[in-house]
Each structure stands twice: as structure tokens, then as C-alpha cells.
């Protein structure tokens, strides 16, 4: 559950950076979106996949 919460928080951070980049398309915010925003999204997705895989293993599906 902690992993899932962490994934949600990271995704919210990524969304915040993305929204800022859409609303104020400056070079700094674009660079932040590319590195921090997408990085946070990527990590959030990876955590989500990890949670799903762990869940499936616990149910002996995998």
C-alpha cells in the first residue's frame, strides 16, 4: 500500500510539473518537465507495475 501511495504522490508531482509547463512554456519549465516531470511519471508507473506484479505473485497467478 505504501508503494501505491508513493506512486500516486510521484504522479501528482509529475502532473504538477506538466501543468506548469503547459501553462507557462518557458525553457526552464520544459527542461523540468522533461527531466523531473517525466522522471516522476516513469517512476510512478514503475512502482505501479511493481505493485501489480507483487499482487499477482501473492495470488500465485505469476
Amino acid at each position, binding site marked *: *500500500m505504501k508503494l501505491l501511495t508513493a506512486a*500516486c504522490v510521484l*504522479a501528482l508531482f509529475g502532473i504538477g510539473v*506538466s501543468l506548469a509547463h503547459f501553462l507557462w512554456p518557458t525553457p526552464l519549465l*520544459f*527542461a523540468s518537465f*522533461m527531466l523531473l516531470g517525466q522522471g516522476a*511519471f516513469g517512476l510512478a508507473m514503475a512502482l505501479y507495475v511493481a505493485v501489480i506484479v507483487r499482487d499477482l505473485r501473492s495470488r500465485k497467478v505469476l
Partner: protein
Amino acid sequence: MGHDGMFSGDTENVMRWLSGAGVLLGLASATVIVIVLARKAEWRASAAARWALLVGLFVLPSMTMLAGNVVGLHKSKQSCTQCHTMDPWVADMKNPASTTLAAKHYQRRWINEDQCYTCHSGYGLGGNIKSKLGGLSHVMHYYFTGVPDPLKIHEPFPPATCLYCHGETAKYQKIDQHEDAEMKPKIESGEMSCFECHASPHPRKKP
């Protein structure tokens, strides 16, 4: 009936729509995530929560990121002049008294838009991506590692960029040296720079 106003197919207008779509997708994603976080822990362990997060953490963010990349990479074409480091070169380009090639190309509108990007990116998809990611690294240098002084071009300016417009013109082809059996292959292969004979496109030193 024309396609003007908010439904214009103009690139800038398409980017505005994409930005709007990105904002909506991002907000939708955030809404899903907040709803999931606000529910009780038992519900968050349920299959319904997993499906909701598949949308909120995967599908919607993927589309948001795609829109963000397209808009951001498009905007990066116009971002050179937003950086104060480039102010002296931009000033030279806009100076009516300047005789540099960059100033002539800019002021006479030989290149109609995105002038920096047009000359400083290779043609084709690979060149576009390389130059845009290069621009991203410039922003990083500006904020984190500092701008090198003096500024130097990252790699020799490829003659192919000049030849893309000039190569097939009658004016270019009637110059003997351009068609010379020894020089022509060197120019076309990039072994010989245009600026070995022609003046530098920008002032050699910081203007």
C-alpha cells in the same frame, strides 16, 4: 469557408489545442489519483482501485506526456532568443547596420521563421531531435553548470545546411569553385567548410 480562428490548422493553433488537451488530461489524471488516495485503505487494495489507477497512473499520464513532449519540443524551436546568453548575437542579427550572414538572412527574411533553429538543426527527424535535445542541455548548462566563455559551436557547422537552400541555385552553381572537381566533393562531404571562403555567419567574437 476558411479554417480560421480557433479551428485553424496553423501549427501554433494546433499547439494551443494540444496544450489545452494536456492540461485537461493532466487534471483528469490528478482527479483519479486524488479520488483513489481519498478512499479507505481496503478499497485501495481492491481490483476497482487497480483499474482506476491503470487509467490515472498509466493511460492519462502517457497521453499528457506525449502532448507535453510535442508542445515542448515545438516551442523549443523559438527558445534561443529567450536566453540572455544569446542576447549579443540576437542583437547583431537584428542590427540593421550588421553585415553578417545571420543578420542578412534574418532581416531580409531569407528564412521566414524559426531562423536560429533552421540553420542550427540538421535536416530530417534525427537532426530535429538532436538539436532539440541539444537545446535542453543548453538550458541545463545555463542553470546548473554555467555557460562556457567563450561560447563555441558544439561541432563544425555542416555545409549541408547551407547547401539545402543554396546548392541547387543557379547563382551557386555558376561559381567555378563550387563546381570544381576537387572542391565539390570536399564541400558536399563536409570536409571543407563554407566559411573557409565565406565570412563567418556570426561575429567571430562576442559582439
